[in-house]
Structures are given as C-alpha cells and as structure tokens.
C-alpha cells in the first residue's frame, strides 16, 4: 500500500505576497556598493487552490466541509492550498480545536496521529505574523494533511489541540517557547527547551541569532546573521 497518488497541482490563484526583498546582499543604503541595490522582488507564497484538488484530496476536503457544517463551524476552512502534492487547510483561528476533533473522529477523515506543531514567523505579513502548522496523519486511509492557523502578533492566542491530540502537549510548549504563541487551554504551558527565566522567544525572526564575533589573529568574523550574505 502506498500513499494514494494525487493529480498534478490543482489550479491556483495568484500567490500571496507576504514581503518584499530588496537588494542582493543584505546591505542597504550607502553601504551597498554592489550595484544591485535597486533590485526588488516579492516574496510570494503559493496561493489558494480551487477544487478539484485531485485524488483523495477532494474526498478529504468535502468530508471536512460536511463535518464542519454539521458541527456548526462551516466557515472554519479559510482557504486550501495544494502545492507539490501536499494539501494545506488554513483554519480560522477560533475553530482549530473543533476542527481537530472533527478530523480525528469523523469516519471519513480519521486523522489519528498528530505529528506535532511547528511555528513560522512572517514579520512582514501584517495581522498574520505567526503561523502554527499542524501535520496530521490518517493511518486508516493513509493520508497526510497540513493545517495552518495564522495568528496576529498583537494577540498571540490560539486554542490548544491537546484535548484531542495529547501528543501536542510538548509540541505546543515548544512552539510557545520559541515563538511566543500562547495555546489557550493547554494544561501547563511553560518553557520546555530554554531555561525558565529566558527572556524572549528565540526562533522568531526579530530575535537575533545571538552569536558572538570570532576573533582570530587580528581578523574578526562576525556571527552568521551579521555577515554580508545573499538574500
């Protein structure tokens, strides 16, 4: 048995611009002698897909829609992105706990295993800076999906899915530790990797890498995040 094949990537809307990239070497202003200072491109994430998504993905999307409607959260799915054979459901922030329960319990869905939560920080995407990404696996149907929730940095709260997937316990603590996303309803949301009294959330983009310059025989090499580099 193999993972059910999917069709080619479904039709997609134009990508979603989340930031702009300028110049070429991460230097700006008069320091930039490269001649590439005027270069400007968009950072564009894959846009929403329109059905049919191909293969089993339509079944999952339909079943999820039906289950959500029955549970009274019909507008839970904000958009669906199919990219490189993987399907991502963007879920409304307030509905994630309810949707997780549907995904685990509905016979047509049966996503028994949660492979954890991962945080991503897009500082330039105003109002949706923080993303919590959940990977779910259905062993019954042998399918994988991804859920994504966007969270504003000003109000970094999202409901915990621990009640449905106890395995998310440590994963949510880790995401809190590294990104400062507060999972409401988590049994004990404390730091897990960093010391308890650590200031800040180290894997956010606005937190420096924190290296020190390395000195060696008259030469100084700055830490990786302060070096001149391609961007």
């Amino acid at each position, binding site marked *: *048995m*193999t*993972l059910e094949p999917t069709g080619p990537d479904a039709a997609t809307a134009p*990508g979603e611009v*989340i*930031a702009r*990239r300028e110049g070429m070497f991460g230097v700006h202003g008069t320091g930039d002698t490269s001649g590439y200072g005027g270069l400007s*491109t968009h*950072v*564009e*994430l*894959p846009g929403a897909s329109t059905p049919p998504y191909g293969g089993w993905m339509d079944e999952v999307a339909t079943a999820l829609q039906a289950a959500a409607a029955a549970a009274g959260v019909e507008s839970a799915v904000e958009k669906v992105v199919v*990219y*490189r*054979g*993987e399907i*991502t459901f963007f879920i409304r922030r307030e509905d994630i706990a309810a949707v997780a329960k549907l995904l685990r319990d509905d016979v047509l869905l049966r996503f*028994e*295993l*949660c*492979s*954890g939560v*991962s*945080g*991503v*920080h897009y500082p330039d995407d105003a109002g949706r800076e923080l993303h919590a*990404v959940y*990977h779910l*696996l259905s*062993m019954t149907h*042998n399918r*994988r999906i*991804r859920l994504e929730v966007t969270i504003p940095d000003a109000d970094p709260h999202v409901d915990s899915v621990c009640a449905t*997937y*106890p*395995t*998310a*316990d*440590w*994963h949510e603590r*880790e995401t809190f530790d590294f990104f400062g996303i507060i999972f409401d309803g988590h049994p004990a949301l404390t*730091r*897990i*990797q*960093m*010391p308890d009294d650590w200031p800040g959330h*180290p*894997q956010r983009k606005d937190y420096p*890498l*924190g290296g020190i310059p390395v000195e060696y025989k008259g030469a100084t090499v700055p830490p*990786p*995040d302060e070096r001149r*580099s*391609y*961007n």
Partner: protein
Amino acid sequence: MTADPYAATESATTEGKVYTVTGQDWDSIVAGIAEDHDDKVVVNMGPQHPSTHGVLRLILELEGETVTEARCGIGYLHTGIEKNMEFRTWVQGVTFCTRMDYLSPFFNEMTYSLGVEGLLDISTDIPEKAQVMRVLLMELNRISSHLVCIATGGMEIGALTVMTIGFRERELVLDLFELITGLRMNHAFIRPGGVAQDMPAGALDEIRDFVALMKKRLPEYADLCNANPIFKARLVDVGHLDLAGCLALGLTGPPLRATGYGWDLRKMQPYSGYEDYDFEVCTWDTADSYGRFRIRLNEMWESLKIVEQCVERLAGLEGAPVMVADKKIAWPSQLAIGSDGMGNSLDHIKHIMGESMEGLIHHFKLVTEGFRVPAGQAYVPIESPRGELGAHVVSDGGTRPYRVHFRDPSFTNLQATSVMSEGGMVADVIVAIASIDPVMGGVDR
C-alpha cells in the same frame, strides 16, 4: 576539622524540606525523613545521571520505591540548530541537521533533503544510484543505531557485556561509513539532489564481508538476551503502553510496532524506492520493553536483508551518476584524495582555474550563494530507527531556508515517560526510558 563542603545540605521551604544530595549522602536523607514520618520523596534525577540516556532530567515523586508521578525536564542540550540553519544555504543546512539526532545522522539528512527536493520539484529526477546509496546508508545506520540502543539500554540495567558487544559491532558499521563518506559520524553526505560522493572502490566487498560477519554475530545477542531470565525479569511487562496510548501520545517506531500494529513508513508511504526492496515489518504483541527490544533485534536482520539487496543493485550501477543532472543544483565536483593527502577535486580545479571562466563563475555562485528554492512548504517524513522523523521545510524563495522544524520521534516518544513509569518501581523507569530509546540531541535539537 573544616566542614565538608560537599556534605548534604538541608533547607526548609514552604513546600517542605529540601535536601541537596550529591553522591552517597543518603544517611542524612534517611534520618531526615524518619523524623518527618513521611514516605513521599521527590527525587530529581539528572540531567547528569548515568542511567538517563543522556542529559535528561527526571523528576520523580516516590512513595517508598514506587513512582507516583514522573515528569521529564528537557532542553539541556538545546543547540538552536533550527535557527542556525536559517542563516546558511540550503546545502549547508545538511551539515547542521545531521548533528541533531547524532545516532541516526543519515535519517536527519534524508528527511531534510526530501523536503527540499519536494519544493524544488526534482523528486523524480534523483538518479537511481543515489537512491540506492541512500537506502544502503540508512539501513546500515539503522543497524548501528539499534546497536547503541541495545548497548546503552543494557548498560543502564547493568548488562555490561551487552554494552561492550554492542559497541564492538557498531565499530564495524562506522568503519563502513568512514570508507564511504569519509566520516564516522555527522556525515552531511545525503544532500538535496543526491549524495555527495560516489561509492569508493572496494566498498561493496567490505559491505559483503560485514553482512556475512553480522549474520554470525547477531545470533549472539539473541542467545545472550532473548531467554535470559534476568533480562526478561527486568524487561517483560515493564513500560507497558497499548495502541490507543501510542496513538494519543504520538508514539511511532518500535514502541508502536510493539503493540502489534505494523506501521512502518518504509512500507506504508515508501520513499527513495523502498517499495522495490523485499523486507518484513517487525511487530511484537506485548506492548512492553521486552517487545521493543525484540523488534529492534529483528529489524537489524531486516536491515541486513535490505543492505544485501542494495549491494546487489549497486554492483550493476558502476559509474552511474549520484547527483541530479541539473547543474544549477548539483555540487560541481567529486572530491578525491590528492597526493598531499587533502580531499580536493583536482580535475575540477584544473577545469575552472585553467579552462573555463564560466565554470569558475558557476562554481563560485553555487558555492557561495547556493540555489534558490521556490517558496512554499513541505513535510516528508521517513521511518527513522526511533519512529516518524520529518522536517517541516519552509522556503520564501530565497537561497536559505526560511524555517526548518524537525518533528523528532525521540521528542514525541519521550512524552510517554509518565504513562510508562507511574505506578511502577524506580528501577523500571530506567528500563521504560531505555526502551523508548530517546536521543537527547534529537529531543532538544
């Protein structure tokens, strides 16, 4: 006489008396507890303790010898690898992630490379020889990782012979790794697009010898342990966790298969051509530490089977490419040891320095800038020796990863410590943890 600076100290807090003990000062505790007529003790075990499988801290609440509550403290090896990867090119990322779960470096590299290849949309272009070499290395790695698990697990329960023979056999695997990749550990050998180097001359014969030797030696483990009454007394029915518990807590790998459910990503969602190999998924039906041990032992046999098939296929693939054909992604050179003992690629240097300006520019761009990966995200998990290992790779279209997060099986499986050990004896906590086989490098990353 001056006061002993190392003596056990005692201080009163609102939560009760706190004793700080280092070493063998148990007398003062025993005396203190006897005064209080309280059997309940909270013991802090680790993070530096010989039996906790690395820098794991256990907080145990004991009543007599029975564990009433157990909690893990982790993070003592947090290295910030995920963040460091964001400041390096996509290829350099391999060098970092290989150091996460240091007992299964090839698996870390593999899942990361699969994610990057997915985003580059070159998954189908990986040459066959690279695929076979990846499988070969991963299966050899599975053997060495299981050997360490059994060895350290044995050591922790006092079976020192198991430890010494485990490390003896692991050395053989490491010699093969050194022959093929040049390094014993932390190889950075599986790269997005293929593998770094071709097989060296004579490697296939060495592997054949190894397989033959292992076939003689693996039964030694079975003879030593399988029916050993002490071993069984320590392992059977210890650290019990059934299927429902495993799924709720997200356990995969040997703990899940020990419940009788044959879930193995190599069979269920094959990658790198695993569907072409003939092997069995090992299961056991006792859901305890003994079952997990037996599964690991059996999986080594299956891995040997796969290694043999790989060797056969590699014999027919002499000279085939090991990197994608796309020169915008493939590392430009094949390294070779020169007369000065340094690993350079002399032909390539001659080419870019003497013959082709374009070649030099191309080399420079690829090595310093790297390639761009289309924006998007991918998650391609694989079956590591400890369970489902996956890298959530996010790109913003740049030359460096935007974010990489590893879903490490050790991290997830370790959550089961409380369930597996509460209500049991203190000594069984060690066995339960050893049977999960957490590698702290993977847990803390």
